[in-house]
């Protein structure tokens, strides 16, 4: 799978490259600044891009802006954003770019190699990977969630991060059937249309949390 990486710290850029190569990804380009990113994406047309939010020369949200621009130039380009801090505001802006896999994770998550690689694959496949931190910040401010049981809230959180039913079941040590029952209850309580498409469902949940 072809990947483009954008990260300004040499150590982290190296680490990411080695880590992804170890899992049979083909890192076709690794850039260290904002202006070089868009041309690299257009030239290499990767299957997924892993991008740091804050890049030189401005050290603001250059990476995020480039990613949003790239998504408008190449609709459906899967992008996984990494950052030292997560802001629901940025998550919202990323999600508002039309279709294609989207991820937004804290850099620390890379240290859990298995989960990180899983997130990259999920995004490349058109799925979503949202950092638990984003989700918990969004969950913290929604009143109607009081309607949900503790278990349902847990399932909603996992679902919002972008996990499939099978993954949620494995993580919470319950059957898939129980998971889908919980999800149906959640959708009913929050007044959302039922849907079997994992990703559409995730986006609906995120849209709800972002409202």
């Amino acid at each position, binding site marked *: 799978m072809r990947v483009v990486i954008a990260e300004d710290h040499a150590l982290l850029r190296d680490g990411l490259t080695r880590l992804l190569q170890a899992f049979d990804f083909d890192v076709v380009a690794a850039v260290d600044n904002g202006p070089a990113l868009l041309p690299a994406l257009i030239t290499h047309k990767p299957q997924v891009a892993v991008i740091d939010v804050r890049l030189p020369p401005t050290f*603001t949200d250059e990476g995020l802006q480039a990613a949003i621009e790239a998504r408008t130039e190449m609709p459906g380009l899967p992008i996984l954003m990494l950052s030292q801090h997560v802001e629901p*505001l940025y998550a919202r802006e990323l999600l508002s770019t039309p279709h294609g896999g989207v991820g937004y994770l804290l850099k620390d998550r890379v240290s859990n190699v298995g989960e990180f690689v899983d997130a990259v694959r999920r995004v490349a496949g058109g799925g979503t990977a949202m950092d638990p931190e984003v989700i918990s910040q969004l969950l913290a401010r929604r009143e109607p969630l009081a309607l949900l049981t503790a278990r349902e809230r847990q399932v909603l959180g996992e679902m919002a991060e972008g996990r499939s039913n099978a993954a949620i079941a494995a993580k919470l040590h319950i059957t898939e059937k129980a998971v889908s029952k919980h999800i149906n209850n959640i959708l009913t309580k929050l007044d959302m249309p039922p849907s079997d498409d994992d990703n559409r469902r995730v986006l609906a949940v995120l849209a709800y949390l972002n409202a």
Partner: protein
Amino acid sequence: MRGTGERLGRWAWRGVRSVLSGMAGIGLAFTNIPLLAVSAVALALTPVPFLGLALVPWTMTLVRKRADLERRRASRTGVLVTRPYHPAPERAGAGSWPRFRWAVTDPATWRDLAWLVPGAVVGFTLGTICVVVPLYGLAGLTLAPLWVWLGTGWYGYGATWSIDTLSDGLLCLPQGAVIFAAGLWAAPWLRRVDAYFARLFLAPTRAAELRLRVTQLTVTRADTMGAQAAELRRIERDLHDGVQARLVSLGMVIGLADELIDRNPKAAHDLLAEARESSGLALVELRHLVRGIHPPVLAERGLGGAIRALALSLPVPIMVDTDLPGRPDAPVESAAYFAVAESLTNMIRHSRARAGSVSLRHADGVLTMVVTDDGAGGADPATGTGLRGIERRLAAFDGTMALSSPSGGPTVITMELPCALSSPRTMPSSVTD
């Protein structure tokens, strides 16, 4: 139509207020002369032991009360006159030498005394004009027709002399109306002239103004340095007790895992898992610390974006409305951000608000931040340390904070920071809340 009526009402009310103020001016003019006499006597008695040193400061206090009253009256007409006096010496009782010296060495003391006589003359003259003209107009409107009606006739009024018939009496009415209106119209202007005259004597001289400014800057500087030092101490402590300690233990655990890796791979594996968790926790702590020093989103998005991001993380829905064509300097931006953030935190903590709003505007070199909520109100800067902190933060940049919080709400905090905005950076069109 209603607008015209309202405007007319406001205009008339302003005229009447000015006339009343002129009337007060006439009365006050008469207090100046005894004050001058008392001051002269006090100064003459200076050599008298025990009594002399006490009398002068005491009469000065009286004169200053009178001058302050005039300053307030001037400020009410829109001519701002600030107090120019040196601060009183500490721990100097009545009759002590420092107190006497403080009274006589302040140039403002002598300027007050110099104002007493001309101030009385000007105040009396302008006050008289203020009062007499509208009264004469009223006389035309009421007295002249009244005398005609009583059948006695009257000497004359305005341009009509010897009023004998009803028609003569009726001629007085329009004249009276014009004179009355002119009097009401002129009164506010006369008050302003009086105020400008008072300002000549009673406003601080350039030197006094500079001295007041230095005093204020000294206070705000001390506050700022104190706050900075406390902040640095807090950061140092957090780093020392948190992240640093964690990294030390992390090194130990990794070292231990290294020892065990051949003899007991299972234990080494467990230790490494623990090390990873520990490094994760260290990062969480660092993120909190960084957010407290300077939120990354503020660096990335500026004031508007940072407040928007903050609003997203609060449990109460906040409407954010920003209109900033550029970014202020980093220190000002940071002070503005924390002032708004603390206002919002205060609101969530105390007011039981269900909704709030923030508006950020920049016009005429002033950044205006307004935070409102629909909570219980009754906030008081005297009791809330948070509000005092906000005031201090803003004062470092000559900013101000005004709080309106009637019991029952709504609470409105208006903060102003004088600052320039740097060249605008293209901001992404963000999703509105």
